[in-house]
């Protein structure tokens, strides 16, 4: 999850709820100091005060880390690391083919980049957090003594049936496909490796001792009369008509908008489909940015191009409820940014640039700053 922190700041400003001065330090006050245990590191998201949320899919938990990285960036510094996978491999004492970059996120305050990395590709892979500072040098973030808090995700109801014979080792796992911080909660989109479902979990932050996650089922009307429980792939907060909304990209390609207020325990939400993205558009990452007084959404798609979507009409666009005829894409207009190819990771670096992890020929990965289109 990318620019969710800055977007949520915007949302809070709109609501008049943003009281950073009063809250400063409160979010980390109840954290304990020590070494957080990670079985894996997946999606990342920044909250306020330099707090980094790290999704641990294997450990079924979200860990909030007070990075202390809260000094505002001075001037625009473009990050560039050629062969970032090889350099991370060298740093970790292994080879590039044993390094997986799971997610990349930019600290909206310092503009330093953080990468969740797996050292190894098998079941014994070791998770590592790597930071790229303004000088484009790589460093591993030492987590031996940090302030952190951890929220263990509650087992979904289908996990309640265990303990019979060979079912005692439960093969079910819920992969976390995206996380984001919004107002006072962490939102988590998940995808099970067994049942096909759409749940967006909301966990209050600061984390409490006992976490009661909130499962929200979201339906969207892009398929004529037919609908499914399709999982959310990635999401970003977005303000529509002065109200905070989430814009969620689904695995089956619709872009769906729904009000954040609707995210209540056990809620079943009918979202509004605002765009049909069509074939070859598998949502990967989304960021929101402004250019020339207009707001745009940039959607990366599984290394197969990137889409720039104007959000001018998002408030007034007619929701898509009928099947979209061949060749006639309904909803928000968009263009494909042709020369942004091979994008594996995407985040907003600053108001002018995006930061991407991009696949070059030969499998090498480059960390690059690209002017926002």
């Amino acid at each position, binding site marked *: 999850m990318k620019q969710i922190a800055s977007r949520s700041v915007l949302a809070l400003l709109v609501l008049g709820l943003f009281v950073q001065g009063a809250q400063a330090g409160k979010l980390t006050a109840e954290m304990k100091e020590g070494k957080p245990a990670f079985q894996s590191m*997946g999606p990342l998201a920044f909250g306020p005060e330099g707090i980094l949320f790290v999704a641990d899919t294997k450990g079924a938990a979200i860990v909030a880390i007070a990075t202390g990285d809260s000094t505002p960036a001075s001037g625009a510094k473009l990050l560039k690391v050629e*062969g970032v996978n*090889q*350099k991370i*491999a*060298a740093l*970790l*004492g*292994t*080879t*590039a083919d044993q390094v*997986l970059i*799971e997610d990349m996120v930019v600290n909206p305050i310092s503009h330093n980049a953080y990468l969740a990395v*797996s050292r190894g*590709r*098998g*079941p014994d*892979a070791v998770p590592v957090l790597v930071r790229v500072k303004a000088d484009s040098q790589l460093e*591993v973030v030492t987590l031996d003594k940090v302030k952190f808090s951890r929220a263990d995700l509650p087992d979904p*109801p*289908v996990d309640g*049936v*265990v*303990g*019979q*014979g*060979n*079912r005692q*080792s*439960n*093969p*079910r*796992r819920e*992969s*976390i496909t995206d996380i984001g911080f919004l107002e006072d909660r962490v939102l988590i989109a998940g*995808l*099970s*490796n*067994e*049942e*096909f479902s759409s749940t967006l979990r909301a966990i209050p932050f600061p984390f409490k001792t006992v976490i009661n996650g909130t499962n929200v089922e979201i*339906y969207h009307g*892009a*398929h*004529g*009369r*037919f*609908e*499914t429980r399709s999982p959310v792939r990635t999401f970003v907060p977005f303000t529509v008509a002065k109200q905070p909304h989430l814009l969620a990209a689904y*695995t*089956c*390609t619709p872009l769906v908008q729904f009000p954040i207020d609707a995210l209540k325990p056990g809620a079943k939400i*009918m979202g509004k489909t605002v765009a*049909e993205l*069509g*074939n070859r558009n*598998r949502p990967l990452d989304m960021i929101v940015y402004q250019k020339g007084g207009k707001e745009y959404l940039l959607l990366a798609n599984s290394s197969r191009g990137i889409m720039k979507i104007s959000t001018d009409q998002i408030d007034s666009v007619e929701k898509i409820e009928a099947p*979209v*005829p061949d060749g006639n894409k309904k909803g928000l207009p968009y263009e494909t940014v042709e020369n942004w190819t091979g994008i594996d990771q995407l985040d907003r670096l600053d108001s002018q640039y995006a930061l991407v992890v991009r696949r070059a020929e030969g499998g*090498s990965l480059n960390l690059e700053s690209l002017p926002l289109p």
Partner: protein
Amino acid sequence: MTQTFRRLHRTATLLVVVAVCLPVPSALLAQVQPDSFLGQASTVRQGSSLSAQQQGYSLRWVPGLADGRKATVQVSGLSLEAIDALQNPAWNLADWRRVLAVYAEQGDSATASDLPPMLGTYRIQSGVLSFEPQFPLDPGVAYRAEFRLGQLPGAQSAKDARLVAVFKLPAMPQRPGAVVQQIFPSSLTLPENLLKFYVHFSAPMSRGRIYEHIHLRNDAGKEVELPFLEIDEELWDPTMTRLTLFIDPGRIKRGVLPLEEIGPAVKTGKSYSLVIDSDWKDGAGKPLKAGFEKRFRVTAPDRDPPDPAGWKIQAPQPGTRSPLIVTFPEPMDHALAQRVIQVVTDSGRDFSGDVTLEDQERRWVFVPTNPWRSGTYQLLVPTTLEDLAGNNIGKPFEVDLFEGIQRRLATPTVKLLFEVR
């Protein structure tokens, strides 16, 4: 006191240092990189900037006693002045790395010259400078330790004078890689709106760009374009021996662009092969022992939710551990049918046992841990159970929105009673 007297460890020549470097357990291979070493040795012997005393430096790899992957690098022969200087608390990582750095060789990478040294802990103990890598060393990777004696505080050596020692654990012993044991659904006919495959491997596999190794081909051998839901997280079980492979829901759902534009991934009446390439590496880095192919024919889409009322229950005899057999009219999702269906006693107490699925996932076979007793038992079936097309019990994969979304999410569990007598 001269520098010569203050030396803690003295060896006659650098070549002796080489000998010190070499003895390692037979299972390990530690070597001094011949070219680099000889080149540096020549510098040490002939360079006018190096005094004779400086030849006493020793750089060596010391393999871990219990675990050869936990080797350390040691430099001895340091002067007391150098040790004092190295113990300067103001030294940072960059200072240490100037003196001693270890590189994991990355092959012929274009950026190889620009690669950072690997992470680890530097220590001075008993006059020996040591470096302990942060991560265990990988077999088959060459690790090059460089001790830059010219960078020691107060050094009078040439700035680029250095000793080099390379350590390389032998590559993993050759053994056959993992194999694909089974792909579910095991049926040879699958509905056009099939939702997922489960690929079972004999050993843990490796993650990362796995979809390059998986293909769906039609009966003419032509590749179906983008049939799967490709997600970077990859849907593995905790042991990484089972991969869940969803068909792209955009190719299943009616009324969405992908289906409108390029149609379903598989079409009724046609035959296809799901192919797993042998170059996919397992968790130990070995390619699969062999590729795998599952052929199947496609039948009409299945949009009907499974109905437990139509299941046949074959009750066992009391006093035995004979199986309880439940027969479905259609194949069910292998993973869910195996995990979520539960047997409880009439009072609701869990009745444990082993479950297998037979007859292409049409038959659920439960062998209890303890013998059956006469009486009533319940089969608890969560409505999350899916058939091959993702239809839940009482809830099709695609639902008519005109029905309203609230009405569909009814009971979480269906109870089926059976008598043992």
